[in-house]
């Protein structure tokens, strides 16, 4: 091929690929887009695209922060442009993708990443290259305790979530006269499950509850029947599972197979909040409780939920859940900080993130607000407890934001 033909080819290619406007702000997003977590990743992609569209677009004004559209005002109306990368749920692939996004796609920040194991490697890379990592949905408490300077997390972590669960136990016990005396820990064997169970073990001890079973199981096992039998033998007042979707489905079925109906299940969200779990488990999911950072039914307290929900449903044909709502909020908070930075440079974005002080009413979350401590953790992300009723989660605690009463130990 002659040089001129190569040049012509390059020229045609440049016509075919839309050039980014000079002032576009490029943000990377790393998720499992293939593999066992693929559906979560694809839903996350849709959530970020909806939020970017809200920030950039010409929708009717949505009553929340960055909801007026028209891009980033302080940067001359610059648009948010997202670049997605596939971690396959593998920490090493996540690390490589983070490096690629930074060095080749020139992103100014990265959002991610569903599994805590991938967040651990991504946030090491972002710290080394000095760009912000915004953790939208990773819930391991250890992530912000590693002295990283560029790590920010809008979501509550499992320590805060578990504290909420034990707060719920105390309140519901006082209200119904059926207190929790024993718990069974049931958790998968990666960073999410082990971190979550460590916190729960500590909190159970502090609350004077018996840990009747402490079961660390192998993720994606073909069979969880023996594990279900151990849970049955322990028969604790409350089972506290920390599981992704596949194992959540397996364990509720395995318990049903041996005719074991636990008095109460209070899940560390994750798989239990996925629509695949709710439809797959069907009647077996009824009555299961789960912590959540999102209260989709709290539309009176958070007026932005309805219009955002409509946009998401139109795109992905399902409702917002615990994960997708947190992803939308993470990008919203990040975009606000980029706007306030005035330059779009990573160092200025970091300064703006540190100064973040957003009220809960300006988001779709039931939180008090968003304000980061020195480790980058949002200290105002207050979780809720939800329960499956007729196939969907409804909020039952804290009692002041609850939309219905919990069915407790029936």
């Amino acid at each position, binding site marked *: 091929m002659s040089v001129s033909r190569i040049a012509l080819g390059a020229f045609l290619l440049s016509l075919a690929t839309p050039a980014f406007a000079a002032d576009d702000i490029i943000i990377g997003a790393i998720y499992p887009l*293939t*593999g*066992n*977590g*693929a*559906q*979560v*990743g*694809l839903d996350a992609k849709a959530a970020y695209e909806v939020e970017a569209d809200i920030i950039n677009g010409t929708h009717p004004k949505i009553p929340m922060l960055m909801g007026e559209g028209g891009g980033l005002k302080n940067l001359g109306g610059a648009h948010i442009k997202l670049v997605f990368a596939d971690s396959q749920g593998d920490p090493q692939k996540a690390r490589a993708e983070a490096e690629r996004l930074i060095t080749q796609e020139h992103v100014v920040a990265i959002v991610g990443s569903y599994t805590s194991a991938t967040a651990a490697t991504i946030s090491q890379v972002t710290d080394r290259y000095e760009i912000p990592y915004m953790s939208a949905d990773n819930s391991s408490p250890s992530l912000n305790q590693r002295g990283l300077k560029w790590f920010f997390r809008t979501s509550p972590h499992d320590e805060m979530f578990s504290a909420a669960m034990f707060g719920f136990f105390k309140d519901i016990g006082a209200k119904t006269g059926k207190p929790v005396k024993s718990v069974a820990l049931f958790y998968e*064997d990666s960073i999410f499950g082990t971190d979550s169970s460590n916190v729960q073990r500590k909190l159970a001890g502090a609350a004077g509850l018996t840990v009747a079973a402490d*079961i*660390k*199981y*192998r993720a*994606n*096992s*073909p*069979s969880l*029947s*023996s*594990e279900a*039998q*151990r849970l049955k*033998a322990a028969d604790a007042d409350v089972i506290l599972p920390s599981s992704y*979707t*596949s194992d959540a*489905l*397996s364990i509720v*079925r395995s318990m*049903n*197979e*041996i*005719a074991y109906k636990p008095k109460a299940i209070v899940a560390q969200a994750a798989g239990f909040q*996925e*629509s*695949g*779990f709710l*439809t*797959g*488990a*069907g*009647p*077996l999911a009824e009555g299961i409780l789960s912590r959540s950072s999102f209260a989709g039914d709290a539309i009176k307290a958070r007026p932005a939920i309805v219009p955002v929900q409509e946009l998401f449903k139109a795109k992905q044909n399902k409702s917002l859940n615990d994960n997708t709502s947190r992803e939308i909020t993470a990008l919203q908070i990040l975009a606000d900080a980029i706007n306030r930075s005035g330059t779009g440079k990573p160092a200025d974005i970091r300064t703006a993130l540190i100064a973040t002080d957003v009220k809960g009413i300006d988001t779709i979350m039931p939180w008090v607000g968003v304000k980061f401590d020195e480790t980058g953790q949002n200290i105002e992300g207050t979780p809720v407890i939800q329960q499956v009723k007729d196939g969907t989660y409804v909020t039952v605690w804290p009692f002041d934001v609850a939309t219905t009463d919990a069915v407790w130990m029936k």
Partner: protein
Amino acid sequence: MTAELILQTLLSGLLMGLIYALVAAGLSLIFGLMDVVNFAHGELLMVAMFATLVLHNLLGLDPLLLLPIVAVLLFGVGMAIYRLLIARALSVTFNTGMVQIFVTFGLAIFIRGAAQFFFGGEFRSINNSWLANKTVALAGIYIPLPQLAASVVCLLAFALLLAISKTEFGRALEATREDREAVGLIGIDRDRIFAIGWGMGAAAVGVAGVMLANFYYISPQVGANFALIAYVTVALGGFGSLGGALIAGIVIGEVEALSALVLEPSLKQVGMFAIYLAVLMFRPRGLFGRL
């Protein structure tokens, strides 16, 4: 630890072990016949599960009624894989081993990708089948009906496979396995035997897939959960031995269930691999291997 708990665990192990055995039977058959390890075996299981799901939603038929349809479908898939890919890979004259590994490995990735493309990554389940989520109690032991049905079907499938091996076709299969060059001289069409062997192997895993779909989630990755165990089962039972696959499947099911009961469940595969390593050291051809 009560007697009931132990009995219940033994039962769960047996029921799961028979499923492992049936998944492994197809793999063993193909390997025994032509020394090709099918790395796409788990994906064939997944294809069968999705086929069950789609036909169930489309025709409204119970998975049990779909059993023959999916088995025939998978038989066709197996034959097609042999004719289109494996026959060509076998005729390669350089790096034969590598080509055979990569052709089925690549096929596995392709099938998984295609499943995700067409069905998405969502976990699906069949909740309205006759047996779904049903359990009967017998003297304090609970027997989940979908697993019980799967075990019965598994034993029937093994009986059928053994019966086939006693027929003239079965003897042709055996002869081809023993000496694939010589059979041509006595008028056996080697290619046809291999194609049917692949068809039978795929149909066996297809039957396992239908029965699994009754009580297990369906997703593009689901095959991987069972594939590793299938390879261990085949190696433990002895390559090419059907009876070996049956015994090894049950052994692995029981070892897994019992180790999850007494050890930390996250270590439950340790017992299974320990047995595998022991067999590898002291009896490399497997418990019932004839090679």
